[in-house]
Structures are given as C-alpha cells and as structure tokens.
C-alpha cells in the first residue's frame, strides 16, 4: 500500500513541478536565457492569490485569470526594456542580469510583505479523498488539474496559433525564422511574457499548497532547473516528463534512503543527465 501511496504522491507532485518549470523552460528554450527571476515571479503570483483571497475575497480560480495578463505585461515590458539590450551578449551577462533583477524583486517582496510565512487557507477546507488506504488531498488534485489545463493551453498555443508557430520557429532556428519574416524581437518579448504569466499562474496554484514567503523562491527555482534538464528544454511534454521523473525520484528516494538525501539525489540525477543525455528525456539533439 505504501508503494501505491508513494506513487500517487509522486504523480500529483510531478504535475506541480512541471507547472513550476514550464515557463522557465520556455524562456530558456526560446530566448536562450536562464531566467533566475523565475522563482520570485512564482512567489509574487502566490502573494497575488493570497492578497486577492484575504483582502478582496477573490477565490484563487479567479486570481488565476487576473494573474496571467498582469504577469504577461510585466514580463513583456521587462524583456523589451531591459533584457533585450543584452540579449545578444554572452550567457554570463544575461544570467547575471536576471540575477540582479531577482535580487531587486526578492528584496522588494521582503520589504513589502515581510519575511514571515503566510498561508492561504480556503474555508471550508477541501479535505482529502481516500480510496482503500490511499489518500489524495483535494486541493492538490485541483492544482494538478489546473496545471495540466495550463500546460495543455500552452501546448495548443504553440501548436495552433500563428504566434505560437513563430515562437517554435525561433526556438528551432533563429536565423531561419528571421529570413522567413518573423519579428524576432517581439517574439522574444512575447515568449518572456508567456514565461512570466506561467510563473504567475504557477504561483497562484502553489499558494493553495505551500506556505508563502519570499524565501521560498530559491526552492522553486532549484526545482525548475532540475525539471528542465531532466525533461529537455523548451518543450511542454518535456517539462511534464521531467516533473514526473523528479517527483518519483524524490518520493522513492526519501522513502528508501531518507528524506535528507532526496535533494542530493535529484541534483546528482541532474548532473548525470547533463553529462549523459543533455537533451533531456524528450528533447531532441542539437539544442546544447
């Protein structure tokens, strides 16, 4: 029974991890920027959900609808005004720039919200479903479903819409995309905006599950890193596969060899993947 429970836990958690990572993966894949501000975006999204519920009594489901456009605009402007200036610079420069941005956003959140932990508690509490001896908490289930819907929407967007095709084109071959008449600058900004919007939405969902504090941003960012590398960059299905694999490894690892080693295990896995299979589980070769 324990094995089934661990498996179910991992399945649910894996979808949440995918949700955390997907915006990060999109930005990395398309812009070739490691977006260190991603973790703070998620926390900001969580605060948005918390504030909306606490002060305006807006339920997190609606907060999701508010967060997406807000974060999109924020991300779009940030890319257009700041990141775009160094987008052609070496890896190191873009990385350090997003690090600086993260310092600012995180400090602003500590200053404004203080560092103590908040918790969004829905009333009435949603409880858990149990089947035989296996228990699944309802709020996680809902968050997982929403995460799946979000990833599905992104998948459709990238597959079906004109902008989506352009984003994919830029990811696959920037120069060719330019030749085909794609406005790369605006695609970059749109992709970054989408990444921010996904982070904001992920934050809203995480608010249901985890305590909220500016200090958790590095934990989210760490998960995003691992998921991305495990699954493969820039692809929606890759993020899902990476999330599930990470959750499974952590769950099984913490049961078999103790919770203290779960994090070590996930990072060792990351290094092994980088060395042996840098394109990730589902990625194609040629992105590295």
């Amino acid at each position: 029974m324990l094995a089934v429970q661990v498996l179910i836990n991992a399945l649910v958690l894996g979808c949440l991890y995918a949700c955390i990572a997907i915006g990060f993966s999109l930005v990395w894949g398309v812009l070739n920027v490691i977006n260190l501000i991603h973790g703070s975006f998620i926390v900001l999204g969580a605060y948005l959900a918390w504030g909306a519920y606490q002060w305006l009594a807006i339920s997190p489901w609606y907060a999701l609808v508010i967060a997406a456009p807000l974060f999109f605009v924020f991300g779009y402007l940030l890319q257009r005004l700041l990141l775009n200036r160094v987008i052609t610079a070496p890896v190191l420069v873009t990385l350090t720039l997003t690090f600086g941005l993260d310092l600012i956003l995180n400090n602003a959140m500590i200053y404004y919200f203080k560092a103590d932990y908040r918790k969004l508690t829905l009333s009435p509490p949603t409880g858990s479903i149990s089947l035989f001896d296996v228990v699944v908490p309802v709020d996680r289930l809902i968050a997982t479903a929403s995460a799946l819907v979000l990833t599905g929407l992104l998948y459709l967007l990238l597959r079906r819409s004109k902008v989506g095709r352009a984003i994919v084109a830029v990811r696959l071959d920037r120069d060719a995309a330019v030749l085909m008449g794609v406005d790369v600058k605006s695609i970059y900004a749109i992709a970054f905006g989408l990444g921010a919007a996904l982070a904001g939405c992920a934050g809203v969902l995480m608010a249901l599950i985890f305590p909220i504090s500016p200090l958790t941003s590095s934990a989210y960012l760490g998960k995003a890193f691992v998921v991305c590398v495990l699954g493969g960059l820039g692809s929606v299905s890759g993020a899902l596969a990476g999330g599930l694999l990470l959750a499974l490894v952590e769950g099984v690892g913490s049961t078999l060899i103790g919770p203290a080693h779960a994090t070590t295990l996930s990072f060792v896995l990351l290094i092994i993947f980088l060395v042996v299979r840098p394109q990730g589980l589902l990625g194609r070769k040629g992105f590295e």
Partner: protein
Amino acid sequence: MVQSRLARYARISGSLLIAVAGLAGSASLASAEDVIRFGAPLPITGPLAPEAVKQQMGYNLWAEEANKAGGINVGGRKYKVEIVYADYQSNTPRSVQTTEQMITQDKINFMFGPFGSGAAKAASTISEKYKMPTIAASASSSQVYDQGYKYLFGTFTPNDTLTTPLTQIIKAKAPEVKKVAILARNDLFPLAIAQEMEKSAKANGIEVAYFEKYAINTLDHSGTLSQIKSLAPQWIFVTGYTNDLLLIRKQMVDQQMKAAVVTMIAGPAYQEFIEAAGQSAENISSASWWHPAEQYAGKDIFGQTSNFVKLFRAKYNSDPDYAQASAALCGALFQMAIEKVGSLDREKVRDELAKMDVVTFFGPVRFGANGQINSLEPPVFQIQNQKAVVLFPDAIKQGEFKLGVN
C-alpha cells in the same frame, strides 16, 4: 601605456573613494552625550529574517519603555537607550564581522548576541576578545556556553529542559504511547532538540521507530509522511521552523494521519502558527522557554508578566512569544545590572550579570558558571481551542493534557 592605465585606475578609484566617503559621512550617526548604545546584529535578510523581526520587536519594546522612564539611571544620571542594528544576512561569518564592526567602529557599549546558537557561538569569540558583555537572546545549545567564556550570557536553558518534562507528562498521561517517530529539520537548533528527544524517549522506555532529517529547502514531505503513517507510531515529534511545520501539518491532514500525540517544536509557540494552521493545530503539544500565561512578579522594568504582555499588545497588537520576550528580557537585564553598579564599566557590568539572582517577568534569572541561565522551568503547553494552554510547570498549569490529534 602603463602610466595611462595606472592613471585611469587612480582616477576611478579616487572618484569611488569620494563617493564612499560621502555615503559614509551622510550615514554616520550623531553621537550625542548621555546615550548608551547596544549593538544588535540580526539576520534581517535571508532565511532567518522572520526571527530577526521578532527579536527586533523585543529590543524595541524594551528601549521604548526604558526611554519613556527617562532612560537608564547610571549613578544618578539618566542615559537614553539606543539600539544599533545591523543585518548579517543570515550568514554566520557575517555575524562575526558585524560584531567586530559594532565593537570597533560603532563604539557600542554593550552587545546582544546574534540569532540562534550557531551565530551566537561564532560571534561570542569576538565579544570575548574585546571583553564585551554579551547576552544572547536565543541560544540554547550548551555547546555555546561550554567554551569557558566569561563575557557571554544566555537566557535559554539547555535543550533537554524542553524535552524531558514533555516526555514525562506524556508517559504519565498517555501510557499507550509506545512508539515515537521523530522528523527533524537538518539545522542547528531543530536537529539538536530532536537528538535530545531521542535521548529522553529512550530514557523513558519509548521506542524510537523512526528518526530522519529533512533538508532545509524541502518543498514536499508526502513520501516521508506516508512512511511514518505506515509505521503507525502513537507519538509524532517534528521539529523545524514555522514554515516547515505548517507544511508538514498540512500534509499530515492531507494524508489523514492520526496519532495520540503530535508534538511540534518550535512553531506552536508562535501566534502565527496557531492562526495559519487553524483547526489543524488542535491538541498539538509543544514546549518553549516562556509563555505569556506565566505569572511572575518581576523586579525589572516590565514588572508583572501580565504587564509585559499588556505593553506588548498595546505596541504590536499581538501576543508576545518566547523569542520576543527573551529579547526584551536581555535589555531589561542589562538595565538592571547597569543601574545596580551605577557605571558603564564593562567589567563591573559583567561581574554584576554573573552574580545576578533576580525574578523578572520572564521568570527567575540566575546564570550558571558557564553563563547560561539555570533558573528557568520551561513550560510545556498544548493548543486547545485555538489557544495555547500551559500543562507544566504545575504552578502555572491552565489545563489537562488531551489525547488525540486528527
């Protein structure tokens, strides 16, 4: 070529120096006469930031009360209290640096220790070097005090004074408790207290069925908790900070874990834990060094414990917890020692602290030979109906221990 480059560097560094000097000048504090400066290095940013806020509240409350009364009376002359804060970014070596900076640059008179046992221990080396009387408001591990230092004092009793009474109560009230599962955050204080728990469980004939640590940034505990659930312990003992404990408690409810006794340290001592955990906090037991329900007739500036609670509520609109009270106590102790000797001489104040034997709003205060307080009886309490109810010591007992956490 070299000359032009050197000249360039000289110019750059010159202008930077001017900028630095300007900034430093604008920020330097006007040092008025008749002020006693207390240095308080705190982890204002970084992972320990929530704890810094608490200590700051305690120090500020004391400073405000002391200044309201005209200041500290030193041989007939009134001195205002000024607390010099600095952020050490939750980084222990930085706390050492900050301590040295405060002593040598900011010319403080006395020192409050940085947060927690690790930083307090590291910084105590500096205070000892400069012979600076230091009171640590939140260091409990006896390793901190066993260094043989003369100038370090601490207001928390050793960790085992928390776990031993707890175990004894549970043994007496819940004889069906045979197995305990211990889950600890891999961090100085939470891990140390979990190890004490393991010892006192063994000493009282309770089997330790599970003992594991979790990493500091753990986001999910479901695997661990499923495993604990499958072992069916009657007592689940978890240590960590408020965020960890909230998350673990939530996941315990999610997984429908039930146990006769659930103990969490240090979360339930904080009002925000009780509020955030809501219904799920019911019947969780804990222990801490102080509780607002205590009633002591203090000889310090705050007097009765209830008076301290009242002043705290008036200023912050919330109930004080042990961390805030301990910080305020540190100030009050310095004030008593300074007023008694009527001098700001560090040696004299240090000697006075060492032989202090007095009742305060926090409880009786007497420091052992190593500088750690040895006169306190830390209370054991349980959350009942969204309120902390004291179970021990008997003198301030408010209710009976209740079994069953769902």
